[in-house]
């Protein structure tokens, strides 16, 4: 236990020292929020079922945070640890390599959660964010998606020699899908992130059941 807590603490410090990771998890989503909030505001729109742009964007940005941490952050860290012999060095010690994987997941989930909380706070304060759902089911959806994406990230880190290709999977989350052209929307159906957005948007508007079939299918695929 002492090893795990110390390792998590060290990994957390390493995460914050890596400027790119911290920037894309904590600062960049906020910048997007203010950018599109500045353009569109948060007036209720018919096409979004009476919600404003910010109301529907925050689940998307949260999904993006999950993707950057779970796919990009985790994959890059893990494949660097493997390539540089950091995992190899750990193999010469009595501790189980699972410790470092667990520590990574804890740190990245916390970082993603922090990024989401910052978004929600900014949305509430500046754009009077409308949230009709159940906070608990929204949080549960977040954890489910986060853990699934990290499982996916570990698979990618295991399969790919470098992590750069992982970034393409993170695309397509930033926009509410109603704004996308028809054929791109079709393509988006094949991207796992779409289902994260659906789940978070669904539970944010108090209607999770309607959008979660694809999501659960995706989560199951990752867990298996």
């Amino acid at each position, binding site marked *: 236990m002492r090893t795990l807590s110390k390792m998590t603490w060290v990994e957390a410090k390493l995460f914050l020292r890596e400027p790119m990771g911290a920037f894309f998890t904590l600062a960049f989503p906020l910048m997007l929020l203010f950018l599109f909030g500045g353009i569109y505001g948060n007036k209720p729109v018919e096409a979004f079922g009476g919600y404003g742009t910010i109301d529907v964007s925050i689940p998307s940005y949260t999904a993006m945070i999950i993707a950057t941490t779970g796919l990009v952050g985790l994959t890059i860290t893990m494949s*660097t640890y493997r390539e540089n012999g950091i995992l190899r060095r750990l193999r010469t010690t009595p501790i189980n390599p699972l410790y470092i994987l667990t520590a990574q997941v804890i740190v990245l989930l916390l970082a993603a959660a922090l990024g989401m909380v910052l978004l929600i706070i900014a949305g509430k304060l500046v754009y009077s964010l409308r949230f009709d759902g159940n906070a608990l089911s929204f949080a549960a959806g977040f954890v489910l998606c986060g853990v699934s994406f990290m499982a996916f990230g570990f698979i990618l880190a295991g399969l790919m020699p470098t992590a750069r290709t992982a970034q393409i999977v993170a695309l397509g989350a930033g926009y509410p899908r109603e704004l996308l052209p028809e054929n791109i929307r079709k393509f988006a159906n094949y991207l796992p992130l779409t289902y994260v957005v659906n789940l978070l948007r669904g539970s944010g508007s108090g209607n999770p059941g309607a959008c979660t079939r694809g999501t659960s299918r995706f989560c199951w695929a990752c867990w298996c």
Partner: protein
Amino acid sequence: MSPIVKVDGLHKSYGKTIAVDGISFEVLEGEIFGMVGPNGAGKTTTIECLEGLRKPDSGSVSVLGVDPQRDGQYLRTHTGMQLQQSALPDRIKVWEALDLYSTFYPDPADWEELLEHLGLQEKRGTPFAKLSGGQKQRLFVALALLPKPRLVFLDELTTGLDPQARHAVWDLIRDVRANGATLILTTHLMEEADELCDRVAILDRGAIVASGSPADLIRDLGGEERVTLSVDGGLPPAVAGAVPATWRIEVQGERVSVAGPSGNTPLVVEVANLLASHRIRFRDLRTEPATLEDVFLKLTGRQMRE
């Protein structure tokens, strides 16, 4: 002294490449044992089989009385290992690495003391990536000493270091041994083996071609000696053709190097006599004792270059 490591008929190949071809040796408690040889001789494969990181194809390996494959956990708890290719995260600080790694062991050494002892105190807050090569190696030695090991494995510890840093690491290794640990190291520097090891095994192409103390191996060479000198205008061909067949001559411009057996008359006297009889002026005459390098050359017929 009892053997702390026993290897019998160790064999390991990767596909069709035979890395280690049935070698046997023992390491005694309290000694510095070196495996020397050129790159690809099988040193790292052997040490990794001892560490339990690789599974031998055949042969038996016993380290601290256990089988590394079966009791790897015991081995990892009671030995220190430094790998040829390993690293720490770039941004981890020296003290953080030591603090973290010391939680891995049931009875770790005091890392603050190690830090001081290895001269890393000023670097305690420095990220790993900003350390020099020598400092990184000292940190790896510190990590290897955290478990208070009875046995320490060092794989190519000084490769890539400048001579000064190398000498500092050598002093460190002698200190570790003076504190009662046994060390097994690999190196492709014959000088390093000569300088540090109580006993060496010279490996070539997966086999041990000679083993024993460096002094014994050199003595078994039969009193080889090396004489170097400079001749103005180079060595005339007539002289080069008149030397005894037992001599090996290398000429580089004006610099001439002669290696050969020292019989009743020392080699240096014979060389000087030969040159004097041909009325050749020479300067900078120097004699060098034979080294493990010469042993390798004699045994394999090949030069061992870095």
